């Protein structure tokens, strides 16, 4: 694979700028909240500026090759190097993590969840940002693992300290579940290292040499990675941490969790598991596809049983990530393209839905669907935004969600050579039925919360979307519409990289 090494400081700068911000924050007195917020804001703006420079410097004609590559020795004893770079798959997710962090910071300027302490809150958020961005650019398994794990801790504290009533339970569940997955994943990484001759942890090297491993060994290594990534995605039946974590997390935590963290798992499949172990991927793909469609239907049924708005949105993530995994499981570049698009779209849409849920909670002090109603009369703008996001989430053409969902369904008609066509066509029909259920639960939610007359409360203090919210939300809303109308903006970047990642499957 061709490596482009121009401007190789850019990625490191973008990834570690938040750490610099953390250092400055630590030196800022806790009492001076304005200064704390300013530092956090400026840091995330600076990060996005570096991100914009990355976008500007990215050679879109060579989206399939690694760019901004930097490589220096790191832990020579175990032959791990500091090796980073982005290609067309990483770039959208890398930038998404930066932008979402900035928006969350902007939102937090006005919405520090109880029990306060913005300094600690922003410190955690910036560390989180480093972890997320680092995961998407790491080209070395150990480096990937470090970043992957770095994400856990701030999120654990974010849920555990600023969360809802059952925050302790939820945060612990989240932490243990993911740690369990990571442990198996690490074992798989080590096995990968030793089975390829203990030469290097570099991902490109392992992709080239992984195919040489005996098939039965590959299957076991893949199993380890599968558990690690599937917990993060989360796939049925490893998903039960998600509704709890989402429900209990503060709004900001939910947004980041939905928008970025879930993508670490799917990204792992696309970047690591499938290219490195093609034979095992062929073995596993029907099972992954099966779990994916079970997740689609199951998540939707879960949504229908919910009485809590935030929990409903959380369950819908299970269903949507099912579509992403279905696309991946086809092992065709068409399906994986759809999956990567789906990741970005889901990040934008579900992140936005959680923002709305947070603002609803702040205003009504409840998320019980039965107690909500008539949002459109009281807060028309918030109501319309919820409507737009619901429509995007149920896959309405012309909005971003559609381009993740529809091609994923389409791709299941024709999986990669060697996979059982009948099985996948069955998956396709089931997934298509899932879109009906998606329409059902989202519209049902919308009908009961936004339509009708307001219920019983005395809400004189209700204010519609305020400035901070507008600033934080508009970019997401615009992106949902823009990517819906012009999906090629994203597909043209993703496609070459996906073709490269799937070379082992003959295109």
């Amino acid at each position, binding site marked *: 694979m061709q490596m482009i090494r121009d401007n190789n400081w850019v990625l490191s700068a973008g990834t570690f700028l938040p750490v610099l911000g953390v250092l400055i924050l630590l030196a800022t007195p806790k009492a001076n909240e304005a200064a704390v917020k300013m530092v956090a804001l400026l840091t995330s703006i600076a990060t996005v500026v570096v991100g914009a420079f990355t976008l500007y410097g990215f050679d879109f004609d060579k989206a399939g090759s690694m760019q901004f590559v930097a490589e220096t020795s790191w832990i020579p004893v175990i032959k791990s190097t500091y090796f980073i770079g982005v290609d067309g798959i990483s770039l959208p997710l890398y930038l998404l993590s930066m932008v979402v962090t900035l928006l969350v910071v902007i939102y937090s300027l006005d919405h520090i969840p109880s029990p306060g302490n913005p300094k600690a809150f922003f410190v955690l958020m910036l560390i989180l940002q480093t972890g997320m961005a680092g995961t998407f650019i790491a080209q070395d398994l150990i480096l990937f693992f470090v970043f992957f794990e770095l994400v856990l801790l701030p999120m654990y504290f974010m849920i555990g300290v600023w969360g809802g009533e059952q925050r302790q339970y939820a945060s612990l569940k989240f932490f243990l579940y993911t740690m369990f997955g990571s442990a198996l994943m690490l074992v798989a990484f080590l096995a990968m290292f030793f089975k390829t001759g203990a030469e290097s942890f570099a991902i490109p090297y392992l992709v080239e040499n992984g195919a040489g491993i005996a098939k039965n060994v590959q299957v076991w290594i893949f199993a380890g990675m599968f558990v690690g990534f599937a917990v993060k995605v989360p796939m049925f039946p490893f998903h039960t941490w998600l509704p709890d974590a989402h429900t209990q997390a503060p709004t900001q935590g939910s947004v980041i969790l939905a928008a970025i963290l879930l993508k670490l798992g799917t990204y792992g499949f696309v970047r690591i598991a499938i290219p490195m172990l093609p034979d095992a991927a062929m073995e596993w793909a029907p099972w992954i596809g099966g779990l994916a469609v079970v997740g689609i239907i199951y998540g939707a049924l879960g*949504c229908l*049983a919910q009485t809590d708005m935030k929990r409903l949105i959380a369950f819908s993530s299970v269903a949507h990530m099912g579509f992403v995994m279905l696309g991946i499981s086809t092992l065709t570049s*068409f399906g994986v393209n*759809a999956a990567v698009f789906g990741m970005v779209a889901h990040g934008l849409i579900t992140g936005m839905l959680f923002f709305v849920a947070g603002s609803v909670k702040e205003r009504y002090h409840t998320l019980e669907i039965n107690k909500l109603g008539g949002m459109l009369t009281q807060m028309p703008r918030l109501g319309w935004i919820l409507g737009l996001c619901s429509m995007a989430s149920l896959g309405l053409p012309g909005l971003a969600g559609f381009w993740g969902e529809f091609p994923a369904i389409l791709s299941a008609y024709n999986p990669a050579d060697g996979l059982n066509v009948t099985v996948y066509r069955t998956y*396709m029909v089931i997934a298509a039925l899932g879109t009906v259920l998606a*329409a059902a639960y989202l519209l049902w939610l919308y*009908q009961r919360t936004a339509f*009708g007359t307001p219920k019983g409360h005395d809400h004189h203090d209700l204010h519609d979307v305020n400035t901070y919210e507008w600033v934080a939300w508009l970019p997401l809303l615009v992106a949902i519409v823009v990517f819906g109308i012009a999906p*090629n903006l994203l597909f043209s970047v993703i496609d070459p990289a996906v073709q490269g990642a799937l070379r082992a499957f003959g295109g």
Partner: protein
Amino acid sequence: MSAVSETLSPLSGGWFLDNAWLAPVIPTVGFFLIIMFGKKLPKKGSEIGVISLVGSLVLASGASWQWIHRVNSASEEQFVTPVVRTWTWWQAGGAEFTIGQHIDGLTVVVLFVVAFISTLVQIYSLEYLRGDRRYTHFFAALTLFSAGMLAMVVAEDMILFLLGWEIMGLCSFMLIGHWWEDGANSRAALKAFFTVRTGDVGLLVGIAILFFAANEWTTTNLGLSGFSIRGVSAWALSGNPNSTVILFAAVALFVACIGKSGQFPLHTWLPDAMAGPTPVSSLLHSSTMVVAGVFLVARLYPVFFTGLDILGPSSNVIMVIAAITIVIAAALAFVQTDIKRVLAYSTVSQLGYMMLGLGSGAWLPAVFHIFTHAFFKACLFLCAGSISHSASHHSFDMKKDMGGLRKHMPVTFASWIVSTLALCGVFPFSGFFSKDEIIDNVGGNGYAFFMIVGLFGAFLTAAYMTRATYLTFFGSPRGAAAGEHDEHDAHGTHDAHGTHDAHGTHDKNDVHPHEDHAHAGPHESGLLITVPIAILAVLAIGSGLFNATPFGESWEYLKKWAEPRAAVVGEDHAGGPGESLIFAMPSEEEGHSTSPCGTETPETGVCYAPALNHAEFKWSKALLSLAIVFAGIAMSWLLSAALYGKRDPRLVGLTQRNRFARAGYRLLANKYYLDDLYEQGVVSNVAGPISRAAYWFNQNVLDGILHGVVSAARWIAFVVYRDIDQRIVDGTVNASADITKSAGATVQPIQSGRVGLYGALFFATAAVAALVFVILNT
């Protein structure tokens, strides 16, 4: 150079044809402008809506005009190439998604109808919704709705088609639920969207099947993707497709049409959709939304033709469904008291005719019926709106609040009568030409049973429309039409919003400037309402002349302009892009396979449309059908007059209807036996039980199944969530945590904090280890 191409003459084009894709773009832009700036404008954004649709109408008219020129410039048997322009939308994983326009006869017909009726409906809404609290949003949604339909009509490929299709679904949700403060309305909106969406599964699956089945063939032979409508059409007629695959594709697509076009058994959303404002009903039921399903069949006709073996010896699924729909919906119309619901069931029934035509190979008559039906049905709905607006105090209940309105509303009355006659199929109104052509051709293609169903449907249509007409315009005024106003009386119809609560958000709400007029009794509506109605009424008379088969072949304009010719297109086709390939058509025997394009097909070339028969017009057949229609009208008129006009008091309490009897009817006691005959002999036995059974089936069985499925799904969801998710899956996780915890608790006492104990344990362990070591080394 094949022999075919020598006779070809160059086709004319034109700016409008090349830029017809702007037709959906203009209203889309209009939608965004209304959303962003609508509230600040003097007319609250409605002017943008009207202007953008006028723009589309101009484009559509120009395109129609130039298309006619294009057809005229072609030689007799030449395939008139559609005007196609494509742009790459996006590409990924080897599949290219294009976006573009495909303008041919069918497109032009529907494009014109949609733009025309949308414009009139918008003008009508200016007055009808004046003062509504969501006036701006209404126009935004209405504009986007038209844009969705226009996009679907001009679509070159299935992706854009799907886009338009779904946007319509969304807008129908917004428009039907326009007065969403009332739970019933938002439920109706939900029901409409959800039912249609259920059908959409078929569309998704159908598109997927077609794409992967056809893509290789189309790319190799035509350089088109498997999403392209042209490509798929040619593929379907090439003799290449596997018959099972294309059967599945056609059935899947037809499922989508069943949902969208309200065919049996998914028609239940349509009457509920009357919850929306009347202009919405009018647009939804005449030229957009419900026509989309019919349009899909007409557009991808080759796929259905091959897949379902249309013109084959046995009947196919389209015809069967259509026939059931025609009869069931017409029967339902008899028991309605809500005027809009009568029209809704009538629409369902008429859509059944279109489908019947398409299913039995009568493509052109079906498209012609789309064309004529759009005008008279839009007119009927707008008349109903006009009545409720100015005469019946916002009620749609024919029995409670109407009657005798012909004197007060001359324009509305005249238009209604004209459109009703058109709908019934009376010569020389437009419906006669289109409906008779369908029935003729169904018979002509050898489906005698379905022809009889069609004639029976015509009888029912005539009868229920006569009943509705009588109730509305004849007899004595009742309720609101008589000037009564009971502010607290719920009118009992679905969408009349009879309770005038403080929200002021219901149909033509309290802040309406015409409220005081309503108190002054029934009167004619204003010009903004009557002019669109009158225009449509004129077209309800005249539009039939576009393909007036009884007057001879020279009158068959639509056949010439709209019907794609089944000619073989070869190499170097003059005019039009994308037509320059030679390829061998797969043949069964040495270049003489019988193909849908004609009896014998040359070895090279492709055709885009199947060859269809046209039944010869005979006055004898037409007179038979006219006789049936007149019989329906006469019978219904007599019975209606007897039942509704001359009611006997002794029947009060015997039937549900007699509750509405008024004291004035007592004078008509001598007509008792006629009433008795009607009630006992005809209505009770035929219209009553049968249509009530159909309605019961509709409300209880079909809706019951829907509700049952939903409740079952919710029950399953609940059980799965509670027992499997929370107990088993989650329980496993919790159990592993508990095990770890209890293990910790067991070892906990050792951690006493006493250094001495630690030391003892340490040395004891060391001693044991030393012992083990010694043993192992000896």
